C-alpha cells in the first residue's frame, strides 16, 4: 500500500518535470475514468457487504461435504458468486482445513473466489464488454476447476 503511494508520487513528480501539460492531461483522464466508475464501485461494495454477511456460516456448513467432488462443486459455486478480501477468506479456509475439509476443496474455493466474479459483472462489463466478461468468467471457472484437480492429485486426495 505504501509502495503504491511512493510509486504514484514518484511517477507524478517525474512526469511533471518532463511535461506539466501532459501530466495535467493524464490527471484529468484518470479523474474522468474514476468519476465514471465510482457509482459502480459503490454499488458493488454495498452488494459484497451484504453477501459476505449471509455467506460465512453457509460456507462453513456446506464445504465440508463427504464426497470430495461434491465439495469441489459447492466450493466453485460459492467461490464464484461471493467475494471477500483475503484477510477473511484465508482464515476461513484455515478453519475449514482444521475441520478436515480437503485441500482440493479449499483450492477450488480460494481460486474461484479470486477468479470468477459474478458480483463484479457490472464493473467488468464496463471495461471489457459483455461477451468478454461472460466468456472470461466461464473460462476462469474451468481454470479454477483445473487448478483444484491438480491440487487434489498433488495432495494425494484423489487417486
Amino acid at each position, binding site marked *: 500500500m505504501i509502495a503504491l503511494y511512493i510509486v504514484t508520487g514518484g511517477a507524478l513528480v517525474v512526469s511533471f518535470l518532463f511535461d506539466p501539460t501532459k501530466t495535467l*492531461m493524464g490527471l484529468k483522464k484518470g479523474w474522468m475514468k474514476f468519476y465514471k466508475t465510482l*457509482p459502480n464501485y459503490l*454499488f458493488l461494495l454495498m452488494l459484497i457487504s451484504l453477501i459476505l454477511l449471509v455467506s460465512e456460516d453457509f460456507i462453513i456448513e456446506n464445504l465440508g461435504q463427504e464426497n470430495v467432488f461434491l465439495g469441489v462443486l459447492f466450493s466453485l459455486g460459492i467461490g464464484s458468486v461471493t467475494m471477500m478480501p483475503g484477510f477473511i477468506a484465508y482464515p476461513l479456509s484455515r478453519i475449514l482445513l482444521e475441520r478436515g475439509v480437503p485441500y482440493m476443496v479449499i483450492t477450488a474455493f480460494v481460486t474461484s473466489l*479470486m477468479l470468477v466474479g459474478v458480483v463484479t459483472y457490472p464493473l467488468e462489463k464496463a471495461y471489457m464488454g459483455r461477451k468478454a466478461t461472460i466468456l472470461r468468467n466461464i473460462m476462469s471457472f474451468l481454470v479454477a476447476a483445473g487448478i483444484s484437480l*491438480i491440487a487434489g492429485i498433488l495432495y494425494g486426495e484423489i487417486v
Partner: protein
Amino acid sequence: MTKSTRNYLIFGAFLIFSLVSWILEYDFGLAIWDNFLVFAIDMVLILPPAFILIGLFDVWAKNETIEKHFGKTNNPMRFIYSILLASTTVGGTFVAFPVANALYHKGAKYSSIFTYVTAASLFMIPMTIMEASILGLKFTSIRLLASIPFIVIGAILLEKYFEKTGYQLPTVND
C-alpha cells in the same frame, strides 16, 4: 435515468438504511455497514493513486512500446510480462479491469490482457504472502504453479475466438 444516477440513488438509500439501523440499533443493518466500511476504507486508499497511475499511463505509454511487449508479435514473453505486471497490480480486479482496457487500446493482444486480468486476481504479491503465511507455502506454491498453464491456455483460446469474431473492447473515457 442513467445507470450512474440509479447507482447513486441506491447508494443513497443504503446510507439512509444504515443511519436508520444505527438509530434503531438494528443489528443486521449495522453488520452490513461494518462490512462496507472495511471494503470502503481499502478502496478509498487504493483507487485514487491507482487511477492517477492509469491516467499517467494513458498519456505517456507509447503505443509502439505496448505493442512490442504485449502486442502484435507472437513473442511468448508477453505472457511473462503480463504476469509480472499483474503480480504488482494493487487492488486486484477492481484496478485490473481499467488497466486491461487501457492496455487494449494501446495495442495489446487479447491473450496478453486476459492473462493479465486473470493473473491479477491470482498472483497479487501482498495477497500471496498473506495466503502463504496462513495456509502454508506448499499450498500457495501449488496454487500458483498449477494456474500458469491454465491461464495461458485459456487466454489463447479466448484470443482465438475474439480475433475470429472481430470483438472489440468498449472505450471508456473522456
